[in-house]
């Protein structure tokens, strides 16, 4: 197990290095921060001064060398926008995104597993059709549009929930609800399909013959065996959430990693972009490891 984790870590580290090089040079293509940060009538001398101050005047390869050297000492550089260490800015944003992702994901998983299993149990029935239609609509709706409609209905017309920002628990309701929809639509379909094939297995017939009730058959006997493909999809969705919900965070003014990412890209805050990408990659690596461990727990055959 330790050896496997080690091998995976090395492979991930290599692709992370490649990604870092690519992002470093490509992001430099998007323009000069000096133009963006200084007033429009700034003189050339002021711009040169700004570049020298932030080490942007050196040749590109020298800048890269310096960046890697600092990185080896765990220094991710300064944020241009906030004049603080880039890694602090990123971690602060993560402290918002992580709970958002975890709460949403747990709700999605519970709801999708319960509803998907029940739908598969009576295939073609009324409940099954309702779940299918809802999940399909959920998977088809663009999240920015759902977010806007939700703001109009619940914040502007009904006045129940705040439009944006963070602070009270009520601020979390709309972002979670909007983020919930698409992953729920996807996962519920996978649960349904997977349960469908698991329910036709011989051990289900045995259990029925022994007089086991319906609900224990679904949730005790079958579910565990139907979980493997579900775990894979959950992993994909969790990775997407760890990347931050750019759209939803932007609309609801939620100070998470997705909003930080788009703001930093648009404002050429290169150090923050790089730090955010690297921290996200580490988070996704850890999550993939957890997923693999979950596989092993669910199915003893995979343990080796």
């Amino acid at each position, binding site marked *: 197990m330790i050896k496997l984790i080690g091998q995976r870590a090395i492979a991930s580290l290599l692709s992370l290095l490649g990604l870092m090089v690519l992002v470093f040079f*490509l992001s430099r293509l998007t323009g000069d921060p000096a133009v963006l940060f200084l007033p429009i009538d700034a003189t050339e001398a002021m711009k040169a001064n700004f570049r020298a101050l932030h080490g942007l005047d050196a040749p590109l390869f020298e800048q890269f060398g310096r960046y890697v050297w600092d990185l080896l000492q765990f220094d991710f550089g300064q944020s241009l926008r906030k004049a603080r260490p880039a890694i602090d800015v990123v971690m602060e944003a993560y402290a918002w995104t992580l709970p958002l992702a975890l709460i949403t994901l747990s709700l999605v998983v519970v709801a999708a597993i319960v509803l998907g299993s029940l739908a598969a149990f009576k295939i073609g029935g009324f409940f099954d059709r309702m779940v299918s239609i809802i999940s399909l609509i959920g998977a*088809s709706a663009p999240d*920015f549009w759902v977010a806007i409609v939700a703001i109009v209905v619940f914040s502007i017309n009904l006045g129940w929930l705040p439009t944006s920002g963070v602070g009270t628990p009520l601020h979390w309701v709309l972002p979670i609800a909007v983020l919930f929809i698409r992953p729920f639509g996807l996962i519920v379909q996978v649960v349904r399909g997977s349960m469908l094939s698991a329910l036709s297995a011989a051990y289900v017939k045995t259990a029925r013959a022994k007089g086991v009730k319906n609900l224990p058959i679904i949730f005790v006997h079958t579910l565990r065996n139907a979980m493997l493909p579900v775990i894979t999809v959950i992993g994909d969705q969790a990775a997407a959430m760890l990347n931050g919900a750019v759209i939803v965070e932007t609309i609801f003014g939620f100070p998470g990693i997705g909003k930080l990412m788009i703001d930093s*890209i648009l404002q050429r805050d290169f150090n923050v972009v790089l730090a955010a990408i690297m921290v996200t990659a580490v988070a996704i690596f850890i999550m993939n490891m957890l997923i693999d461990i979950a596989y092993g727990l669910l199915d003893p055959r995979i343990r080796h």
Partner: protein
Amino acid sequence: MSDLSLTKPNNPATQRGFTIFLAMLWRDKLAFISALVLVLVVLCALVGPALLGDLATNQNLRGRNSPPFDMTRGWAFFLGGDSLGRPMLARLIVAARSTMMVAAGAVATALIVGATLGLVAGYMGKNISQAIMRLADVIMSFPSLLLAVVVLYVLGPSIPNMILVLAITRIPIYLRTTRAEVLEVRERMFVQAAVVMGASHGRIIVRHVLPVVAPTLVTIATLDFAFVMLAESSLSFLGIGIQPPDITWGLMVSQGRPYLTTAWWLALWPGVCIVITTLALNLLSNWMRIALDPAQRWRLEARSTTDV
């Protein structure tokens, strides 16, 4: 696609095949309606700009944000007017073109490049395969937002560049699927038979492997079309996608956002268009998964209309 080019339109067997196909579509009512909706959208995209192009850009400041369902201003204002008094309905129809063009262009490019690389990766030796797969890994982990900004800034905002950005991010999907299928197909007996008979690599790939892989790819492409549409509208919404005066449904939602409290219809209708189109694509893709799979096709063929 090669299997389509082999058939001629006057071939009776093809015509019968087409009728069977339509009959199979008719059996699944939801898929049939979806197909009709999609045909309508494509028609709007093809002829809409020619018919309504002037109407859609004709500003009328006295009709600013005029409310929907009011027939006094003419049919074009049935869905209301936008912030410059341009008729919403006409604008929606005109916007269908760039929305469809971006999605179709991106899906077609990603499909062709991805499938070709996937065929090569699956069929050729381990080294080439490894190199191609690592490329896919890097593309998948590269943040697509950054890619969009880089392309937008370096090459300038335009529809072809938007297609480029979206196509690059979608290539890995086709690449991985094709490779996985090819790895399995090339071990089958008929491929070995072709090798024994001395067929060239190109012939084996095009005539023996590709037709087996194609149905899966077409199904994924339909599903992906919906995804690309959503991605394009998200980017346009964030302001790093299509730029005015070009217009897509996603951009229209974003332009309507400042008027949410006073004129909700500006953001609502384009969103409804997106939802309906993606829903139709999803339903059609569900049907295709069954119709193109020889092992499951009987569900649509040999079923009387009464039993379910």
